[in-house]
């Protein structure tokens, strides 16, 4: 199988990741639940992972890196823990349901949400931020890169707007972490939500949120903490504040190994490699008859994603043909981003999404482009 569904999850991980998970599964006690060697072994690796994530996104406090199961959980915690009834929040049409559904729930609870509209190519205009702000606006929640088109958002511009108006900025780095640089201090970002199993090459079930010092997020999950057992409320200090219950220590050991690998390989090298393949594919398919490629390919920073359709063919059928006849793994359908599909006019059809990672090759990419060409000829 030629695996080009890395925006869903990077299937091929560096070998050190599985090794680290396997070792952790025989070595780890429960971090923070005692001071014997096995508990401390787990706690040390988890703390080291906090330091690695903090370094990656420019979070000055490793103890403000709180781990969750994935981006969705991190975004739920951030949105529910920062905003409430009466608050207005700005977001964009590019967002994934992991942002949209918590925002719609906030709206049902008496909050308000304004969206920056995307055009028919899936582009937003950041000048619109000034049009959607209201007196009760408290925050901006914005993806760093669209999971449908791969187009990146200029977070520095968004943060300049948020900073100028005293708004909390939450960035969804699900598609960008490990590919595009972020610096929470330089870019005045309050919260970065990330997942471990995509561009960070860690195991599924790892993710988290990095929080600016001084920002108070209400916990929605309370329980075992390993500290202050007689307190009736969740201890207020990060990361314990948001981490009730046993952490996924085994997964985080894998994430730590993955982050070591990523540091040695270099985020920039990975980005250049992946984008070169995405660009190669784009150039090979964009002029084929009946092929529509979505997104902005005129020089906008992006992540290695190409979304396309063949004529009016159901994206699920195309993806299934690619898998069954050509052995190429892609993702069809709506990609959990309903507002974006509405903007692109692909609500019914969905799109076929190809996405690259470090372990993909030029030969695989060429084979995928030839498969699309063959399908295009048949239509």
């Amino acid at each position, binding site marked *: 199988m030629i695996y080009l569904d890395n925006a869903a999850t990077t299937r091929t991980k560096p070998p050190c990741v599985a090794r680290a998970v396997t070792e952790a599964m025989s070595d780890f006690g429960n971090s*923070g639940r005692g001071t014997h060697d096995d508990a401390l072994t787990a706690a040390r690796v988890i703390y080291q992972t906090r330091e690695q994530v903090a370094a990656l996104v420019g979070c000055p406090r490793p103890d403000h890196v709180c781990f969750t199961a994935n981006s969705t959980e991190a975004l739920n915690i951030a949105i529910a823990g920062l905003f409430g009834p009466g608050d207005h929040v700005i977001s964009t049409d590019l967002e994934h349901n992991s942002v949209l559904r918590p925002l719609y729930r906030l709206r049902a609870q008496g909050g308000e949400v304004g969206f920056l509209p995307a055009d028919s190519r899936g582009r937003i205009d950041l000048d619109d931020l000034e049009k959607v702000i209201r007196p009760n606006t408290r925050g901006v929640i914005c993806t760093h890169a669209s999971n449908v088109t791969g187009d990146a958002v200029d977070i520095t511009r968004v943060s300049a707007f948020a900073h100028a108006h005293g708004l909390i900025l939450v960035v969804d780095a699900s598609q960008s972490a490990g590919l595009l640089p972020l610096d929470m201090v330089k870019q005045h970002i309050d919260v970065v939500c990330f997942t471990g199993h995509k561009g960070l090459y860690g195991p599924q079930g790892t993710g988290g949120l990095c929080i600016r010092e001084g920002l108070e997020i209400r916990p929605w999950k309370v329980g075992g903490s390993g500290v202050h057992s007689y307190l009736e409320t969740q201890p207020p200090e990060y*990361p314990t504040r948001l981490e009730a219950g046993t952490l996924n220590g085994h997964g985080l050991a894998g994430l730590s190994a993955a982050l070591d690998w990523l540091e040695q390989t270099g985020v920039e090298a990975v980005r250049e490699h992946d984008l070169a393949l995405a660009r190669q594919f784009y150039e090979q398919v964009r002029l084929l008859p009946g092929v529509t490629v979505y997104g902005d390919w005129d020089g906008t920073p992006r992540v290695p994603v190409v979304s396309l359709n063949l004529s009016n063919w159901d994206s699920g059928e195309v993806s299934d043909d690619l898998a069954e006849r050509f052995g190429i793994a892609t993702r069809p359908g709506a990609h959990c981003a309903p507002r974006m599909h509405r903007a692109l006019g692909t609500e019914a059809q969905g799109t076929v999404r190809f996405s690259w990672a470090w372990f993909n090759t030029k030969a695989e990419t060429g084979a995928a482009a030839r498969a699309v060409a063959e399908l295009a000829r048949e239509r």
Partner: protein
Amino acid sequence: MEEKKLIVTFGTTAGAMAMEKACREEGVPGRLIPVPRSITAGCGMCWMAPPEARPAVEELMIRRRLQTEGLYELLLRR
């Protein structure tokens, strides 16, 4: 036999981990133990060091912005 010990407590396990890492890197003595009952009835871990290490521990806490809760000198059975 009871011995006087320096005890540093933390609000979170992450705080204790940062302390252990800083002490190991800078050769400050001590190790993590369960918090003695006389300080708090909760679970959790604390840094135990010989009392003569107090200046080095305090200097490290300030310089590396370690997040600690309390500093005690206790007689512990060791």
